[in-house]
């Protein structure tokens, strides 16, 4: 993402022109452009999706689906200053929402076993904490969940978050405050002190 404070106006213009060119090629379903998009954004999309789901496998699956959906809808992507990441995050939000709805309709419980536990020295606690956090996040509104994921999991600046969410920076600051307050209350209700 561009950072006006670092690059200056000319640098920003260059970055935006590059992003626009990439978007144009993506709309044309240029495979190299899509590979570049995947390389640039998969990890962020995965993190975004992962914050809402208990299982790593389903997060991987949904994250992959985001790019497949985006590719299938490439002709609909209207780049007018909208970052590709914003578009991908929008698709991810919808996929996660639909996924959780289906789970709810089936009455099925998600697999609570974290399949990545082998990497962690204290897997049990980390997995338990993450589950509690995920459960607490689900109490929040979608916008609140989005701002927390972008800011604290994907480490996006306020400015970048504002671009992705198409809001002002003040609105993002306000939203993140309310989201953190809601998250804290939700975690306290679970008996978990953040």
């Amino acid at each position, binding site marked *: 993402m561009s950072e006006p404070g670092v690059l200056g106006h000319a640098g920003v213009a260059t970055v935006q022109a590059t992003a626009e060119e990439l978007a144009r090629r993506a709309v044309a379903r240029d495979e190299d452009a899509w590979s570049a998009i*995947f390389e640039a954004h998969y*990890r962020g999309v*995965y993190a975004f999706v992962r914050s809402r789901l208990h299982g790593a496998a389903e997060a991987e699956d949904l994250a992959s689906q985001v790019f497949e*959906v985006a590719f299938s809808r490439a002709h609909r992507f209207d780049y007018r200053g909208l970052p590709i990441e914003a578009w991908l995050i929008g698709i991810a939000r919808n996929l996660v929402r639909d996924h959780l709805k289906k789970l709810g*309709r089936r009455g099925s419980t998600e697999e609570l076993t974290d399949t990545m536990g082998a990497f962690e020295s204290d897997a049990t606690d980390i997995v338990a904490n993450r589950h509690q956090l995920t459960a607490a996040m689900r109490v929040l509104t979608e916008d609140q969940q989005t701002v927390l994921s972008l800011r*604290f999991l994907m480490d996006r600046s306020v400015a970048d978050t504002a671009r992705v969410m198409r809001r002002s920076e003040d609105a993002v600051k306000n939203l993140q*405050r309310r989201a953190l307050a809601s998250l804290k209350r939700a975690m306290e209700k679970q008996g978990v002190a953040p």
Partner: protein
Amino acid sequence: MSSKRIDRLLAETLDGGRIPDDATLEERNEVLRLVAAAQAIQATRATVTLEADRTFATSRARFERHLAGARPSAGARRPRFSGRFGALAACGSLATAVVAVLAVLFGLGLFTSDVDTANAIEVGDFVQFEGTIPEGGVSADGKTLDVETSFGRFSVEILHDTSVVDGTDLLEPGSLRPGDTIVIAGLVGERNRLQAASLSRSDGTPVPPPGLRIRALGDFLPGIEGVVVAVALPKDGLQARVVIETTAHERFLLVVSASTVAELVEAGAGGLGAVVRVVDDAGADPGVLGLDVSATSERPLRGVNIAGVVLSADGPVLELSTLRGSRTVVLRESTRIVLPEGSLSPAERDRPGALVGHRVAVQGQSAADGRFHADVLIVGAEHRPGDRLDGPLRGP
């Protein structure tokens, strides 16, 4: 302590790593509480990053396969319904949710040996598939069509109550001609005969000849996603057989529960052309799999033509209360009644008036007399006072 001030103090603390000096004690405490919540999320970042790195290569390979599958090339065919899905959606009256199942062609004796032995299209199944009328394929009286499908040739009988449509327009049966590509729904009889419940002219792309192998999928295998090219409903309404064609032009046949069929219908993608992903159906009988509608399907598509509550039943004629008022629905001999879990048993279904009071979803066509001819009727839970007429089949 204004919220705007806390917004600023919090943002500066998160950016700079320390609370600004001008914060009051009360503001400081508030900011610390909020930062603690942020840190709870940040604590998971390292693990999530590891996971993302670990899954990157696999997911990239999957995406590259997806790109390759979408690549047009001389000999390869795109999934048949990827461009046609919207056209089917526009049909409106098309009975979806049931697509022809891949037959054991050896059993029927008319198909090539290029197709794997899979499940049979059993006599009595309600099926739906697409086919092309070849030259000479219309009988002199216009009541029988020979239709070439990717599963072989079928002899399709047009009955007095067969609906023939083009989009939402009713057609005269005799208006179908050689070269027309049509979606056929109906009851399978002996020797590849089919009594048509409905015929719908589609966008005209000729149907490929038989040749794709179909593999029966008894156990769950991850990563299978494709377009539904067939579903068949046996008479008992408890299960369905589905054929999916992947972007790599592999076809898989699987058995799904009636509940899965209902979910497909409710998701608005209940039939031909739906893009689905095979999932494990927890709690289902062995060999029964599930389907999730992939987000790559065009949305919204209403696979359900009518949804409501059965107010009364006079033999095969039902009166439904829907959000748009009362509708008369006619159950025909070919109508398949699907019974998801929690609706009715087959024995209960056969009792007179069994459907009264139940939520139902019906797919079919509007007839010239204003009644709705049902091809598929999915039975839901009993309607309770206060429930929405268009609520989920299983109830709120």
